[in-house]
């Protein structure tokens, strides 16, 4: 695992301006993805998972948002400072992304085939018959039955699972080195979810593509991710191999998240109350100087409210917590 990272995010900050001042939604995010690896990003709503994905491709809605600091190094090139035409060349070609909502992510007035061909034409120059054949092959790859017929279908004629498959076909059309999947199955049935994840894993294995999988489902992470980054309050609070983080979580927030997963095999008659983390994600307006999790943390120290904890190597993974830092540092 000593090879250079494909993507390295360093100290990424994103701010949104408004009348109430600037709101920091990302506050120094550090991540790295090696070629062919799957990185899971977990966290509650509002922790900055999706914003991180958008910021990597420089798609933060602007104005009012902007990337206010940090670097996104993709194969050694900083995407934050790249030219507009350069970033358009990366999008969909080197780095692709699929969204949560397959129902609305396809243009309703064009056939799915035309939309796949459009992507192919833009980045590979493939047009006409060869593009059509390639698109049909892609539809076949993502497990769509009768792909030649489906090529001429309009999005509204396909089910949600089918549409997400089409989105995946578009995303992998140009053989990207990195695929960002932002909660790709949230809008789908549980049975279809499993199919989509199987498909993503299979495609990834076949093409040696790296993947960033954003989810709030720890079960999915356990199944698919090689490494996991836990986000909270616009920061990565813990990052390490999936096994390390899930088996021996270090950060109190990670432990809380894992405790929240109900066990369906728990067949005790007396139902234990579901576990929860008290409180809410702090508002982006009042990020204090200290640890953003301090107000909800059961092991809070005086130091936590005064100073932002730094990332330290704890038990083989990076974590940002004063409680754990003591022994190591």
């Amino acid at each position, binding site marked *: 695992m000593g090879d250079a990272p494909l993507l390295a995010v360093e100290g990424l900050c994103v701010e949104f301006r408004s009348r109430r001042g600037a709101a920091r939604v990302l506050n120094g995010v550090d991540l790295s993805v090696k070629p062919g690896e799957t990185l899971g990003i977990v966290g509650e709503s509002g922790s900055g998972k999706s914003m991180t994905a958008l910021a990597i491709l420089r798609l933060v809605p602007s104005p009012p948002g902007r990337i206010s600091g940090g670097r996104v190094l993709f194969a050694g090139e900083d995407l934050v400072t790249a030219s507009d035409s350069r970033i358009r060349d*990366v999008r969909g070609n080197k780095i692709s*992304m699929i969204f949560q909502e397959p129902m609305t*992510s396809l243009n309703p007035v064009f056939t799915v085939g035309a939309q796949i061909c459009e992507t192919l034409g833009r980045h590979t120059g493939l047009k006409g018959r060869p593009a059509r054949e390639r698109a049909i092959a892609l539809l076949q790859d993502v497990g769509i039955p009768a792909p030649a017929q489906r090529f001429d279908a309009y999005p509204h004629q396909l*089910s*949600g699972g089918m549409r997400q498959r089409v*989105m995946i076909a578009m995303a992998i059309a140009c053989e990207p080195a990195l695929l960002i999947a932002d909660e790709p199955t949230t809008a789908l049935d549980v*049975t279809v979810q499993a199919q989509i994840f199987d498909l993503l894993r299979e495609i990834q294995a076949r093409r040696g593509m790296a993947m960033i999988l954003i989810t709030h489902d720890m079960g999915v992470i356990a199944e698919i991710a090689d490494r996991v980054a836990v986000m909270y309050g616009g920061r990565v609070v813990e990052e390490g191999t999936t096994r390390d983080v899930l088996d021996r979580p270090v950060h109190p927030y990670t432990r809380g998240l894992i405790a929240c997963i109900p066990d369906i095999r728990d067949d005790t008659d007396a139902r234990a109350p579901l576990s929860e983390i008290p409180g809410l994600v702090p508002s982006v307006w009042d990020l204090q100087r200290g640890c953003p999790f301090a107000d909800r943390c059961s092991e809070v120290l005086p130091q936590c409210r005064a100073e932002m904890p730094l990332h330290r190597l704890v038990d083989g993974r990076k974590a940002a917590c004063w409680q754990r830092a003591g022994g190591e540092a």
Partner: protein
Amino acid sequence: MSAMSDAAPLPPVVSPLREAFGIFLRRPTALIGLVMLTAIVACALAGPILLDVDPFDIVAAPLTPPGTSEAWLGSDQQGRDVLTSLIHGGRATLAVGAVAAAIAVSIGITMGALAGYFGGAVDDVLMRIAEFFQVLPALLFAMVVATLFSPSLVVISLAIGVVSWPPTARLTRAEFLKLRELDFVAAERVIGASTGRILWKVILPNAMPPLIVSATFAIGSAILFEASLSFLGLGDPNRMSWGLMIGSGRSYMLTCWWAVTFPGLMIFMTVLAISLIGDGLNDALNPKLRER
């Protein structure tokens, strides 16, 4: 649900456009409008070729009533044949209507799309310009333009087009404001589309249904506008048009009713036909009005 439909037999693929066309053809009123307009356009296009006579030629005694062999629909106060004038005049009227509407819709779509997509300062500036043209008395402005420049068909079309784009711009702006937030626009950005492509090839096709309907009505109102200008004597005096016929015959209206009634009827039928088509298109293209 997905697992079910995955296995279900494939439904035939019908393009949305063909579907809308089918709905359009099932409306009797829309069909009547389409037949009427087709007949009128065919007359205006083919008539002057088949009937190669100058409409300004004197063919009968002035004020000949309809029903004579020299002039089936009568002659006007200068002895010009009303039927010939009607056929030739249709060309100018329809051409001005179509060109003026095309100008209005092009300006309107461009301004509205830029204002709606970019928002902020761009929106403010473009919408203030639109408001300026909206509060401008349109007929007065067109009259001034027609008086300042020689009133050729091109100048008149431009004058009408320039004063009638704001409603289209507002409609386009509203559509773009709504559509720019949708996921497929974001998805298009993700695969590396340029702003130009997103504006014209991604959002605009989705905004077309209401714009097609509004463009249809724009043709109707441009025809009426042209007729008003000609009636006031500000049209092109060297090109026969329905408005010109009514304008020049208006002093003889009581003794020579046929010289103003027939062109008036033609204008009425043309605008009615266009309105019927517009209504039919609205039913066919607006999913909220669709009954299945």
